[in-house]
């Protein structure tokens, strides 16, 4: 990434990031990721999914290609960090409103969009 390196393609994740390894380099530099070309300059370390993160940071030597992670149905998809974008998490008040509005008796419900 940003450097000229040669290595073996270990695998590609579902987001199109390519993972390389070349043990000719020092430990710590021998595994790297090349982000999907689509993101161009907007690459970010959080775009690496958890299972490849493990391999990339030497928590395991088995890449997810040979040792895939167990899949459960409650697992949600990996997302990158959205901070600073318009998809970022914005905290909102969950406190009950101090004043409740009137709703007419005839069954209709008025939608109040109250500040």
């Amino acid at each position, binding site marked *: 990434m940003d450097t000229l390196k040669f290595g073996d393609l270990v695998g590609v994740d579902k987001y199109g990031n390519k993972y390389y390894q070349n043990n000719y380099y020092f430990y710590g530099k021998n595994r790297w990721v090349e982000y999907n070309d689509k993101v161009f300059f907007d690459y970010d370390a959080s775009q690496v999914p958890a299972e490849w993160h493990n391999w990339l940071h030497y928590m395991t030597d088995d890449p997810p290609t040979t040792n895939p992670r167990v899949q459960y149905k409650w697992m949600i998809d990996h997302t990158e960090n959205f901070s600073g974008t318009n998809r970022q998490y914005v905290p909102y008040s969950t406190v009950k409103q101090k*004043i*409740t509005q009137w*709703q007419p008796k005839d069954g209709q419900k008025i939608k109040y969009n109250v500040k």
Partner: protein
Amino acid sequence: MLRFVAASCKRTANNPSCVVWLKECRRHARTSGSKQQQTSAAQETKPKLLEVFIDEKKVLVEPGTTILEAAAMAGVEIPRFCYHERLSVAGNCRMCLVEVEKSIKPVASCAMPIMMNGMKVKTNSPMTKQAREGVMEFLLMNHPLDCPICDQGGECDLQDQSMAFGSDRSRLQVELDPKRAVEDKNIGPLVKTIMTRCIHCTRCVRFMNEIAGCEDLGTTGRGSDMQIGTYLENTALLSELSGNIVDLCPVGALTSKPYAFTARPWELRRVDSVDVLDAVGSNISVCTRSGDLMRILPRENDAVNEEWLADKSRHAPVDGLKAQRLTVPLLRPSKSSQLQMCDWEDALLAVGRALNGIQPSRMEAIVGPFVDAETMVVLKDLFNTIGSENVYLHVDSDLDKSCFPSSKDLDFQKNYLFNTSIAGLEDGVDLLLLIGTNIRFEAPLVNARIRKAWRNNLINDIAVIGENGLDLLYDYEYLGDSTKVLADIVAGKHKIVDRLKKAQKAVVILGQQILKKDSDSNAYEMVRALCDKYGAEFNLLHANASTVAAFDLGLKPSSERKTDNSDEQSLLWLIGVDDENLTIPNNSFVIYQGHTGDICANTADVILPGSAFTEKQGTMISMEGRVQQTLAAITPPNMAREDWKIVRACSELANYPLPYDTLLEVRERMQQLAPHLTRHSNRKLEKPSLRPPPISSVSAQSPVSLLPRMKSLVDYWQTDAISRCSPTMSKCVLSTKKEFDKRGIKY
């Protein structure tokens, strides 16, 4: 002695023979008392004043004054827990011990009358200090150390006085003598009890027995086993004044249940205001924290509410004004569609269009119970500019309209005021005649005043025409429920006529909540005629806070509306009117303006969100004609605005702009209309001087019974839009019903 008789009289009131006997007893006591007074007055024209020395300072007092009162005159405050000016003296807390020269023991100053000349009191001597420290040590010995979680914290007499007068150490050894613990009692949804904190001052017991007239609270046991409680494990105090024992409690044993753990006194901002839930005009202070209404407390005003407040006034607005609020303008685009949220521009334009497009003679405006005088002035000006005279004060359709003054009676204030004034009830009333009213629930504090006068033998003759078997907290003679009784009295055929004639000051109070019957009772005219004939003072007991202001400004009662069945477009402007059976003309454009959405808001085509009495500055006039004002404690929620401003804005968009932009200018206009409406004063009461021409003849009517709308405590809690929205008031209804069921009382 007298006090004891009066108290025990009430306690045994269920036994009729007892009542008679006790009444005789009281009569006798009264006459003999007055005789004594007469003789003593003959002996010496003015009572001899006695000299007392409080800390070397000379004070002249009348014989019989207590040391504590004398010290107050000298500007020395003696610490006290059980003593309260408006309650009887108990003398059981011993905090007010002072050293009196030539007395071996310290003396409880609240119970010690000054009877001899030259008494020397030392309120700062080592003996006094030691006595106070000793009492404080005993009190704190059994008092829990839970101030951090106690609602009284910050306004606690025990905290303050232990800081000021207590010792800095205690000899209590908890491992040898554990602290006393007392089980908490459930006494209803308004008062929370933490009985371990109780110091047995018995202020609550004395208040409930003496002032509230509900002898449920009492003490059981002696010494360290003494407990305050309802003897029979009652789960609700059947009283409309029970909230006051929270204010009276010097410690945190009785705290307000709805207010529990919500705020600290030092966080609150207090704004002086006036209560609007009944027509008494009680002085209150509204406590808010960061734009949130937290609680309502009474403010002392001897002429109106002394220092008490009715439970509905105290608790209903606090949560009632937080539910079902109208906070944004709503608009029904066409007759068949539903209400939708809109901007103020749209709502005002719709109102403006309607005001322009509809014939002025087919426009009507009706103001409800909480409306301030400013709004009425602006509304009346707008309608008069457009060319309509139809501005009405709402009269509930359930009520008998002939007990209200009609528009021809409104020329004289004496015709519709509570002329005796509330404080005047204590001033030599010989005969009190209550007609068609359950005064206990229509105006609890007026009733408390009558009870006070009755207990002090200032009113001894009370008669009632109306509902039979009302529990009014004092003895009265029941004359019947029909207008026939009234007619008999006017004709001079009734047995009470002699007493009426004899009475120096007879006071007649006519209720304004008499249920409608098939035919009109004509009660108003008959009572006027009665008063004119016997020279009695005529009083109307209004139920709504806006009534007197409306009458002063010339609004007609809505019972005089003339609605026809024609399909021509008409306009109906309701300000805070809630009435299920309100007649709405056909093809009518209904504007609902108010702070709470209730029954009539459902029929509206435009809803204009107004503000409640806690959110605006407005003039309110109490039933006795006292001009007071509410002040804004918080801002109106969301897009709600002050009521007179809404009307003023509508006038602009209807192309009839009214010539005032600020409250001061509105009040200038008000001064032109009715000068007294701008002379706000909580203390002074201007009495009308003009006397209306007497009514000579009353048309004969078939007898109709005069039954008040509210019968028992169950009916009291939820009577208007604010209290109907209040969860606390619903809880009160439930607990009262439960308690009534348990005691086998019908409601």
